[in-house]
C-alpha cells in the first residue's frame, strides 16, 4: 500500500463523508474550540460529562478529511468512556500520530490505529491532532481555546 493509500483509507474517507456525532450539543457541560492557525481549520468539541463519564460527545467545525475523520473517530471511541480513559487514549493517540508505525500503536487505540498513516505526513499530523487537543481543553473545562501550536 502506498503512503497515500495508507493515509486515505476507506474508513477515513467514510468518516470524512459521513462524520459521526457531527452536531452541536445544547446541553453540553464541557465545550472547547480548537484552531489550527497555520491553516484556519477549526473544531468545537461538545461533551456531556456526568460523574466522570462521557455520556455524550459531539463536534462541529471545518477542516480537511484527516481532521474531520480524526474528530469523528474520536467521538465514536469516547462515548461512554471515563474521563481517565479519555486522557489515556489522548496520550496513546498522540504517541501514535507523532511517533511509531501502526504496528507500534498501543493496542488500546483500537479502530483509531487507522490514523497511524498520518505520521508519514509530518505536515498533516496537526490536522489529526486538532480534535484531540480540543478534547483535552474541553475536559479541563478551563474555557481555553486549544491550538495545535502548543505541540511540537
Amino acid at each position, binding site marked *: 500500500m*502506498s*503512503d*497515500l493509500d495508507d*493515509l*486515505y483509507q476507506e474508513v477515513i*474517507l467514510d468518516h470524512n463523508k459521513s462524520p459521526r456525532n457531527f452536531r452541536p450539543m445544547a446541553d453540553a457541560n464541557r465545550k472547547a474550540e480548537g484552531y489550527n492557525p*497555520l*491553516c*484556519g*481549520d477549526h473544531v468545537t468539541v461538545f461533551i456531556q460529562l456526568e460523574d466522570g463519564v462521557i455520556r455524550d460527545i459531539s463536534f462541529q467545525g*471545518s*477542516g*480537511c*478529511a*484527516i481532521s474531520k475523520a480524526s474528530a469523528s473517530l474520536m467521538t465514536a471511541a469516547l462515548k461512554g468512556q471515563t474521563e481517565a480513559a479519555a486522557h489515556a487514549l489522548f496520550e496513546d493517540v498522540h504517541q501514535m500520530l507523532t511517533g511509531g508505525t501502526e504496528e507500534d500503536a498501543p493496542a488500546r487505540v483500537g479502530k483509531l490505529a487507522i490514523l497511524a498513516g498520518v505520521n508519514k*505526513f509530518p*505536515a*498533516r499530523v496537526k*490536522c489529526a491532532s486538532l480534535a484531540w487537543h480540543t478534547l483535552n481543553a474541553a475536559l479541563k473545562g478551563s474555557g481555553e481555546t486549544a491550538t495545535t501550536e502548543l505541540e511540537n
Partner: protein
Amino acid sequence: MKARPTRANSRTIPHFDVARVREDFPILDQKVRGKPLVYLDNGATSQKPRSVIEALNRYYAEENSNIHRGVHYLSERATAAYEEARAKIRAFINAGSDREIVLVRGTTEAINLVAHSYGRTFLKPGDEIVISAMEHHSNIVPWQMLCEQMGTRLRVIPINHDGEIVLDEYRRLLNDRTKFVSVTHVSNALGTIVPVRRMVALAHELGIPVLLDGAQAVPHLRVDVRDLGCDFYAFSGHKMFGPTGVGVLYGREELLEKMPPYQGGGDMISLVTFEKTHYNVLPYKFEAGTPHIAGGIGLGAAIDYLQKLDWQGLAAHENAVLKYATESLAEIGGLKIIGTAREKAGVLSFAFDHIHAHDVGTILDQEGVAVRSGHHCAMPVMQRFGVPATTRASFALYNTREEVDVLVRAIHRALKVFD
C-alpha cells in the same frame, strides 16, 4: 506599466526561452517523491537562479566583512557590493535616489516600519487608514496594531465577486479623516492586479499618502514607483528570485526625512545600534544593526538576472501559462476558481465543495506538484468567498504548459481518491 529601459551593457535574451531559463534554476531539475518537481508555490517563495546562489557563495567565500565601518580591504569591498545592490534596486523600480531605498527583512518589516514610524508620528485619534479586503495579513495587522495604540480607525475597501477592488466604494471611503492608504499591488490569494496608479491619484487629490504592497507584483510586472506615484512601495527579495531575509522599503525622500527611526524612539536597543550621525542620513537611519549583507548582494544579483530577460517575452509567456492553467482547471468538474479578475498575475486559487484544500495539497505533493493549501495569510479573503481554504497554484517565469498538464492530472487523482 511603463517599460523600464534595459541597461545598455546587459545581454538581452530575445523571445523569452523558458527551457533556457529553467536551466538557470538548479533546484528545478530534480525528482520529489519519485516524480519530476513541478514547483507551483512561487507566491510563497520563488526559486533562485544559479547567479544568485553564486553571489551568496562568493560573498561568504571572498568578501565577508561588516559594512560601513571597517577601513580594511574586505570591509570596503563588502560595503561597495552592498551599496551597488542598493543602486540596482533603485534602478529596478526607477526610484529617484538611493536614499529612498531602505533595506529591510522583507515586505512585512517594510510595512511595519511605515506603520510604526509614519503612523505613530503623523496619525491622530479619529484618523482613518484605508486598506482593501484582499490584503495579506502583513498589510492588515500592523495597521490594526497602530489603531489600537493611536485610536485611529481602519476602513476596508470591499471587493467584488471576481476579487476586484470596487473603485466607487474606494472613492466613497476617502474623506478628510483619511490619513493613509495601504493596498496591495497584486493579491497573493487571488492574483488580482489592483489599479494602484488610479488609486494613488485619487488619494493624492486629497493629499493622502499611499503605500503599495508589491510583494507579489515585482516578480511579474515592471514596477516604476515614480510612474505609479506612490509614496511607499514594499517588497521582498525572496519572491523575486532573491534570498530570504531581505526586502525593500521604497519611500519618497521627503517623507522618509520627516519620519523618526523605526528602531528608535527612546528604545535602549536603538541607542546601542544607532549612532547619532545615522539619524540624519537616509537610508541608514532606518537600517539599525548589521544588515543581511549577503542577502542584499544576492538581491542585487537577482535584479541583474531579471534585467537581462526580455520582459515583453516574459510577460507574454507568463500570461499564456496562466491563461492555459485557468482554462484547463475550469474544465474540471466541481472545481471553483477563486479570483477571476480581468487583470491577474501569477496566481490560480481554487476550491472544491467536497475536498478540502489540505487533502488536495497532500495528493498533489505525491505527484511532485508543490502548491500552497490554506488561507494564504489572507483569512478575510477566504471569508469573503465563503471557503475555509483554497489550493493555490502560483506561477513564475520558469513554469510551463507541460507543468500545468501535470497539475491537472494530479487534481484528477485527488478527485479519484475522494470519488
